């Protein structure tokens, strides 16, 4: 069983992405292969330099940096969405890679899951 968790909402304004990340951490903890795909407004999760102190939230950038340590296999950024949100590859946080979020990519996972 391989799982792709998809995050398509911008961070901080909505909690669903955080809960998607928890799902990914949970699968990894139980040694289930899991990757994350950021697409649409979700690619804003991957921008370097997030400082959410003034809105009293914890940094999702910091959460994500723990992903490889916990065994999450890949952090994928949909290329077209990155272009739409002005994100070049060097502006992505470490460990994230561009991918084409095509039906081919999705077809390679047993499960494809949104958190809301």
């Amino acid at each position, binding site marked *: 069983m391989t799982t792709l968790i998809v995050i398509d*909402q*911008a*961070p*901080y*304004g*909505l909690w669903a992405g955080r809960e998607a990340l928890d799902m990914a951490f949970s699968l990894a903890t139980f040694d289930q292969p899991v990757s994350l795909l950021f697409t*649409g*407004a979700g690619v*804003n999760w991957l*921008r*370097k*330099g*997030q*400082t*959410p*102190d*003034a*809105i009293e*939230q914890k940094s999702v*950038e910091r959460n994500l940096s723990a992903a490889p340590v916990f065994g999450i296999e890949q952090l994928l950024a949909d290329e077209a969405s990155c*272009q*739409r*949100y*002005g*994100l070049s590859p060097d502006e992505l946080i470490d460990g994230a890679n561009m991918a084409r979020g095509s039906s081919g990519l999705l077809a390679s996972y047993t499960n494809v899951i949104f958190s809301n």
Partner: protein
Amino acid sequence: MKLPMSQIHTLHILNKTPEHPRFNECLAMMGPDDALVLTENGVTALWSTSKAALPKVFATKADLQARGLVAEANGATSVDYPELVDLTVQAKRVISW
């Protein structure tokens, strides 16, 4: 930062990303004496390909910082919450999208 002293007819507060249907609805409804403030996830629009469609625009500083963005680089004016209060006071009416 100095806020405009002129009267604003309608202040539009938009907290949604450019993919949300209300985003374009809001832009379509803006009149000539209106002003737009992007808040929460709405600030991501300043970096998106939709920014070309934006009129003169404000954006909340705390929301920009949270998302790793700097308003001035993209032609928007960042406002703190006291300045957001000023904008709502200056406006004849406020619509939250």
